[in-house]
């Protein structure tokens, strides 16, 4: 008890910094899984099968209509009672991946739709198979069209990782480390504003960088045309 300081210490700052690192890690890992799953879900909706369309549509709709906090608890307790207990960190990553995959699927669908039908038809007319057309024509064009939306999703995901705090996953990400400090020093306002500044800097910098990159890409595109 003697080591229980009630002021903000250097150690606390390091804890928050580590938390920011975990936030990044969670974003990248679940962003990657979510994008892979979301890609197939989005693609599956464009294959023309009515059953697939209905099932995947329901998947997307359910995931997007339930708050992430509820999903975390539900998935975690479902795995527990199903006899596959996962550490909160792992179950958190899986929940985040499933959650973001529904949004990625919508973006993928929009990307595929953004490619004019006659472009695909031309490709098929040149003798390309469906897969050749998809990977060499539709995908490259579609990706450029929806890259900004995808970046937006990943930024949203970074902020959403904070809700994993509800499971108390260790190592703690940024919001959870803030809560740990708040529990000790009882100054929620100050700590949360600090945490907010961390998020703001991370999101803002990435948004700016990707914005610049997209603009450059756009200029190159225009120069080509």
């Amino acid at each position: 008890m003697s080591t229980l300081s009630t002021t903000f210490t250097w150690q606390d700052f390091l804890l928050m910094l580590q938390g920011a690192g975990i936030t990044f890690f969670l974003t990248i890992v679940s962003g990657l899984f979510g994008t892979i799953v979301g890609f197939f879900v989005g693609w599956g909706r464009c294959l023309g099968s009515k059953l697939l369309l209905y099932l995947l549509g329901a998947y997307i709709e359910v995931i997007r209509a339930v708050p992430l906090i509820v999903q975390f608890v539900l998935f975690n307790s479902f795995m527990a009672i199903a006899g596959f207990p996962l550490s909160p960190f792992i179950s958190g990553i899986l929940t985040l991946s499933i959650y973001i995959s529904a949004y990625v699927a919508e973006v993928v669908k929009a990307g595929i739709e953004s490619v004019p039908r006659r472009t695909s038809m031309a490709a098929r007319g040149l003798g390309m198979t469906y897969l050749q057309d998809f990977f060499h024509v539709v995908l490259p064009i579609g990706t450029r069209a929806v890259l900004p939306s995808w970046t937006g999703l990943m930024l949203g995901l970074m902020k959403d990782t904070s809700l994993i705090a509800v499971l108390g996953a260790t190592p703690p990400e940024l919001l959870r480390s803030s809560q740990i400090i708040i529990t000790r020093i009882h100054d929620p306002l100050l700590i949360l504003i600090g945490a907010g500044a961390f998020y703001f800097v991370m999101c803002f910098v990435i948004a700016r960088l990707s914005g610049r990159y997209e603009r450059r890409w756009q200029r190159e595109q225009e120069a080509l045309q």
Partner: protein
Amino acid sequence: MFDYRFQWRVVFRHWPELLEAALLTLQITVLSVMIGLAIGMVLSVWRKSDNPLLYWIAATWVALARNTPALLQIYLAYFGLGSFGLHLSPYTAVLAAISFNNAGYLAEILRGGIDAVNPAQRNASLGLGMNRLQMYAYVIFPQVLRAVFLPITNQIIWAMLGTSLGMIIGLQELTGMTTFLQSQTFRPFEFYLAAAIIYLLVAEIVLIAARLTARLAFRW
């Protein structure tokens, strides 16, 4: 596979509380979208403004709303303003924070829509003797709202999800009520599953209402 017996009776026993909480969620969702849309329209116009102050206000609002966690925004609306002696009730604070957040995102969505409207129409409307307000109200926004209807419905759903964060500062909305009931019964899976289904229904109701409104407003 399972060593677990589901107990649904306890959920049905608390049905009235869940329903009441769901109505609160619905109410804040609808109000925050209406307020957010109104402010978002103004902000999107200001971002096109030549006045540097108006531009700065709009740009800052959008950047802050989009780049900080909604939980923090709710916290600041309740405790942040509270430290300056301005006390909002949990209901008002959550409504204000979600509206603030909505306005930022919607402004960005609407800006994209405004960009898509042919600039010649602006000159045409002004040439017809309309003032700028009339131009936006009668020419620009009806087209914009139609063009970005899908992103707006996404934002509506997001607003509904965002209300769940209000439980931290004492709003007894659906997630807050679910948390309370599970703490009393120790049946997290049953109650959170019930909450998930109710959220799904609330989302459907809001989306259907939005589509009907749009149909009436734009005569689709």
